[in-house]
């Protein structure tokens, strides 16, 4: 259940829908189209999801499904960025849940991720989803604990332990 208190989010890509306001004198910004939003958000979402899932193919699928959900609600979303962020992470969580066993049994497809990064992805794969996501959001996206808590639907106090445990495990796996 989501905490009754949600956290301040700053510095995050908000995907604000710019609405034409006829009441002001300055020329309004044109509303952002879905195409513009997609073009801007797709690469970063795919890259982040790949780090979390350890598979570019799975990441493309998760991001695609999230964009489908956003597109369906585009007219109702005044701010689409946070919705997309959470949708991608939720789908990554689901993909991870379904795919962990399969991944252990099946070799990584050739060229799914760059070969030189395989040790990093293998190390990340040893972390539970919450730790993996928190580490990627902190050290790849440079988000604060409060921002991470908002995205992962938890209290800020939970994020620190996840990151710390995740770092310990990564250090063990990578050194």
């Amino acid at each position, binding site marked *: *259940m*989501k905490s009754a*208190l*949600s956290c*301040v989010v700053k510095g995050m890509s908000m995907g604000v829908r710019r609405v034409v306001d006829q009441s002001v004198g300055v020329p309004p910004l044109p509303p952002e189209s879905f195409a513009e939003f997609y073009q801007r958000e797709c690469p970063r979402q795919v890259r982040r999801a790949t780090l979390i899932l350890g598979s570019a193919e799975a990441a493309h699928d998760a991001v695609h499904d999230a964009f489908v959900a956003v597109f369906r609600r585009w007219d109702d979303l005044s701010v689409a960025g946070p919705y997309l962020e959470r949708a991608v992470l939720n789908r990554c969580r689901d993909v991870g849940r379904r795919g962990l066993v399969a991944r252990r049994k099946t070799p990584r497809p050739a060229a799914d991720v760059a070969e030189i*990064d395989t040790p*990093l992805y293998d190390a990340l794969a040893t972390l539970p989803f919450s730790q993996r996501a928190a580490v990627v959001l902190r050290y*790849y996206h440079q988000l604060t604990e409060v921002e991470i808590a908002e995205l992962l639907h938890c209290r*800020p106090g939970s994020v620190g332990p996840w990151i*710390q445990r995740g770092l310990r495990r990564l250090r063990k796996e990578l050194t």
Partner: protein
Amino acid sequence: MNDLADQLPEGRLSNLLREAAERVGVRPDIGAVVDETTVYPRLIERPNVHRVPSIVFLATASAAALAVGLAVVVPTVRDRSVDPGVQPAEVDPTYRNHTDVYPLLTDTPAWAGDLTANVLRASGATQRRLLALVARRGQDSLKAPIIISSGEPTTLDVADGESLGDVAGYPAFLFGDAGALRTVLVTDADGAVLLALSGLAEPDVLVAVLEAVTVHESDSAPTFTIGELPAGLDVVVEPTVQPRAVDSFGIATSADATADGTLAIEVVTDLSDLRFYSSRDGAPDLRSIFIGGTGEQLTAWYTMPTADSVVLAWKLDPGIALVLTATRDGITPSEAIRIASDVVLTDQATWSDAYDAAAIIAATEASD
């Protein structure tokens, strides 16, 4: 700095992640998104399976009644009346919503590293919310408490949940993994969330509890009552209207710190019972402990979600609850209580000086 930090500095990890991400080949395909949405829509909206039988039943019953000239009485599995006749407990009128208190730790343990300031926004939790708590009563603890709530904001999307079909006449969706916090969301026919149940419980237990709950839909906000629970489960806190949330402040170990553990202390003012705070992130068991003071301050509630973490909720002043989350190898409830005894409430200026919180305060004021 500990030894581990030398083996993989955080800056190095950032570089590794960034370099790996830059090597990911991205294949944008907006056409597939639009096509899939407009031509081949996925089943985002769940089928309203409980409505069909009701309509069929109503039509059948009406036809039968017309045939025999009798009034139609349609039985319902669940009471969906606007006024259930049972009013939940309201907020204690003496409860104070504090917006001007800040936690200060007078003696920070070295293992917790540097503490930084943060703010918890009340956004979304300002409407009428109803919470209840059910659990098995152990000899000296509450086992795997389950929070039942209506009106509580959630970021969970039913499209991401596992459909449980209809439970007691409502579409229900399951979230969470085995051994972790699980949540069941119950929606109305339009997909709006009516009810949420969450706890460290198996899905069948959550469903059994849900079947004992009667939802009362209304024009304003849904409420609920709890009937006969499965054997062994008791209502610990009756459905109670919760105080309106306000922004509040906390301190926590910085994620950048290479400390031996983490510590977070948050002022919380939006829930009526300490046991909600101690169990909302999942509690295997919940224990009370004497911590001194007078009146409401006498009892704190704690849980150890894992072997190396403690969550402790207590009241420092009537109406002001605090939650401490400590994670460290070998941490004990006693150690958490000792840290809690070093927490004092202070004013904004002192807090800002202690935790360099000027930027946090400015951001909060700017967003108000």
